[in-house]
């Protein structure tokens, strides 16, 4: 027999001013099953909580209803008090008579009646409550970092330096990401590789970091603290444990005319290659799509000349299963590529290039060794036009968002060009200059005022070739929209930052959400900006949205701190508000019939198939079970279940029905 205690709070005068609390307490005392009822000025205060604890002990209460503020405010407080008094904390319910009664209704009988209705509802609910135990889940203190760009590097180093193991997976042959391709970085103009490469080496040498390059995440199962990840180790065809990185193989490789991805196609590489001189690891892989041995079946030069005997043509993709507790997704971005701008001749005229190509031209390690030369004829351009917002903030192109970094890198490009070609002319067509960052606006002003870059506010309508020059037609909206025509030698388009092309696949493998542009979605745009909706999976860098290096590094450190926080205890406690499938004696085992509808609607893939077998191992029945580690307690499965075999703890069918009945039957 239930013995329920009802505690009505005055909340100073917040409740008692409009609700006749004494009457509610008196009437609540007469409800069936209520053994004790009282009103008090401040239930959440120390004496208030003591009153509750003493009453539970004295009247041997089995459950309590605290009628006060919203459970979103003080549910935790009163559950703790219940626990102190020796009853299961989940036998405490709150009746919200402040936010939803006293504050929104005038003093009247109807208001008092509504308060009493809510109290009665919660009394009936608490009678159906069951003792619940918080779920304890062990934590594997290893983090998986997906992506070896600056975001992944920062996150991995932070976690590793905190003393935890890190597994880093990078799909390319080297870590470094887009940052390794950059020439100088804004707003300080320090050399990108100079600040990045020491960190790349640190990753490779860190005792707590295991680095897998040329590898991809194939499958992710499990839940926070206990993920099981399958990594596909793509066949490198080179045994890195033997290879010394001497470079003889790529010097002798006969397939020399393969467009070099690292130089954005403005140079060539060999079939066996290491992407750039500072690569980490600086050991080659064979690009099988371009290798004579794999394509034509003959060659084998590298194998013959390798002094370490490291070349192995027979090796296949391997799969590695690892267990990790947290995952940091740092898969980065891409730039919108050719054929997107037919009106700008991008992909048609060799000297219309994108921002990343310009970075390579300006970089000392680039195809021109840092001299800015036209890709078509190698001449140094006299006049360059930079077009900002090429694709970004353009509904017609399907990209409404701002790519965020273009204003700054365009100013940087123009500046770098002017620093190298003092008598050259640099023009920038822009929509707005968005230089909101520390020292950012000063940087743009410097480009305009000190380096004499011509900024023209307006859009470019068309670019075409005439007598070896690129004719750029646009308007100057600050000059009454007058048409502008510039004869340029080279045009640089600040093309839009887009999500990585395999972002959607990655998101689906990890069960994280993404927006319509395939950028990964954070759990809350303001208050949980680095976590995803899947507990234990964090985001770092441009995979979440366009951002520059400082912001990427901050976010990476933030997500690393989330992982470190998770690893600070051996197990974690979760609210036991999870779904459960009922259990019966064999041969039924459960009333679940295995229709699997719940499995289809579960957003967390928390429902698993379960096979019931007899003693000899014959399959008797197929049903489902809930993985409590994954379940977040939404209850969609419960509403879906045809025969009420699955139920949600804390919001069970029984409890909800009792609430409805009690609310309507006074």
């Amino acid at each position, binding site marked *: 027999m239930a013995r329920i205690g009802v505690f009505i709070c005055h909340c100073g005068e917040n409740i008692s001013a409009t609700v006749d609390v004494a009457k509610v307490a008196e009437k609540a005392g007469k409800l069936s099953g209520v053994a004790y009822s009282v009103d008090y000025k401040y239930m959440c205060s120390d004496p208030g909580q003591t009153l509750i604890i003493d009453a539970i002990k004295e009247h041997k209460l089995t459950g309590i209803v605290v009628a006060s503020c919203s459970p979103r405010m003080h549910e935790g407080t009163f559950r703790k008090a219940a626990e102190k008094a020796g009853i299961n904390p989940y036998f405490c319910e709150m009746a*919200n008579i402040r*936010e939803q009664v006293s504050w929104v209704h005038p003093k009247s009988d109807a208001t008092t009646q509504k308060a009493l209705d*809510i109290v009665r509802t919660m009394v009936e609910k608490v009678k159906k409550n069951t003792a619940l135990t918080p779920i304890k889940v062990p934590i594997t203190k290893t983090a998986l970092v997906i992506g070896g760009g600056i975001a992944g590097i920062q996150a991995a180093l932070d976690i590793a330096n905190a003393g935890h193991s890190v597994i880093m997976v990078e799909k390319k042959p080297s870590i470094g990401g887009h940052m390794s391709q950059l020439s100088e970085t804004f707003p300080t103009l320090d050399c990108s590789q100079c600040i990045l490469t020491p960190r790349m080496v640190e990753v490779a040498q860190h005792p707590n970091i295991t680095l897998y390059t040329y590898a991809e995440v194939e499958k992710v199962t499990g839940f926070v603290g206990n993920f099981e990840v399958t990594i596909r180790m793509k066949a490198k065809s080179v045994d890195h444990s033997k290879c010394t990185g001497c470079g003889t193989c790529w010097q002798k490789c006969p397939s020399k005319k393969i467009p070099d991805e690292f130089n954005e196609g403005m140079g060539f590489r060999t079939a066996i290659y290491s992407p750039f001189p500072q690569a980490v690891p600086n050991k080659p892989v064979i690009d099988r799509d371009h290798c004579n041995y794999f394509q034509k079946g003959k060659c084998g030069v590298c194998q013959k000349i390798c002094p370490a005997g490291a070349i192995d043509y027979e090796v296949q993709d391997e799969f590695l299963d690892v267990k990790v507790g947290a995952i940091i997704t740092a898969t980065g971005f891409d730039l919108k590529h050719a054929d997107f701008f037919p009106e700008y001749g991008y992909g048609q005229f060799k000297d219309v290039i994108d921002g990343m190509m310009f970075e390579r031209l300006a970089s000392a390690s680039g195809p021109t060794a840092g001299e800015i030369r036209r890709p078509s004829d190698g001449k140094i351009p006299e006049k360059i036009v930079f077009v900002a917002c090429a694709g970004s903030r353009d509904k017609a192109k399907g990209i409404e968002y701002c790519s965020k970094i273009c204003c700054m890198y365009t100013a940087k490009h123009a500046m770098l060009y002017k620093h190298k070609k003092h008598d050259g002319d640099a023009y920038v067509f822009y929509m707005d200059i968005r230089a909101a960052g520390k020292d950012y606006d000063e940087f743009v002003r410097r480009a305009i005022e000190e380096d004499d870059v011509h900024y023209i506010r307006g859009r470019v309508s068309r670019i075409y070739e005439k007598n070896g020059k690129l004719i750029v037609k646009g308007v100057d909206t600050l000059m009454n929209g007058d048409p502008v025509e510039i004869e340029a030698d080279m045009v640089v388009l600040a093309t839009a930052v887009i999500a990585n092309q395999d972002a959607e696949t990655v998101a689906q493998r990890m069960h994280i959400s993404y927006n319509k542009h395939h950028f990964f979605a954070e759990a809350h745009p303001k208050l949980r900006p680095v976590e995803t909706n899947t507990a234990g999976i964090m985001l770092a860098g441009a995979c979440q949205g366009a951002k520059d290096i400082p912001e990427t590094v901050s976010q990476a450190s933030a997500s690393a701190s989330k992982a470190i926080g998770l690893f600070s205890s051996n197990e974690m406690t979760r609210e036991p508000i999870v779904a459960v499938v009922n259990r019966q004696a064999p041969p039924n085992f459960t009333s679940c019939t295995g229709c699997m509808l719940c499995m289809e609607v579960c957003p967390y893939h928390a429902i698993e198939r379960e096979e019931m077998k007899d003693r000899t191992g014959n399959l008797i029945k197929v049903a489902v079970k809930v993985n409590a580690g994954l379940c977040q307690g*939404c209850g969609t499965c419960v509403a879906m279940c045809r025969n009420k075999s699955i139920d949600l703890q804390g919001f069970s069918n029984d409890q909800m029905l009792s609430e409805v009945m009690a*609310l309507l039957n006074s």
Partner: protein
Amino acid sequence: MSEQFEPKIVAFVCNWCTYAGADLAGTSRTKYATNVSIIRFPCTGRIDFMLLMKAFENGADGIIVSGCHPNDCHYTSGNFHARRRWIVFRSLLDFMGFDTDRITFSWVSAAEGAKWAGLVDETTQRIREKGAFTDFKKLDCSTFEKISHDAITE
């Protein structure tokens, strides 16, 4: 003058958006009708629509179902399931001759306290004009017998 009819309305709301929105209406001291009482669910996806029928059976005159706006669900997709379920359920109710205007299906976010108050007042006014819901009470065994008798004789 006869006293004005005060309907009983039950609101089935999700914990994360509409319940928080109703709390916000409280903290903003927005006044609204006393006729609506809230039952808190973790998510609109949890709402078994048979509970709506149970509410009508037990004397509710109107019902509000409200959760997070599409794409804002705390559990990613629960509100989409609720919406689909509602679309199917509504056509079933229509088919049975049930007045679906007695049910308000809405989205109220945690920031929309004023919207919640407006929704409550609107719904209360609408149900007040419709009067008490008596269809369930009119049903008794003889009605069912008559229906089945008619079905057989046809």
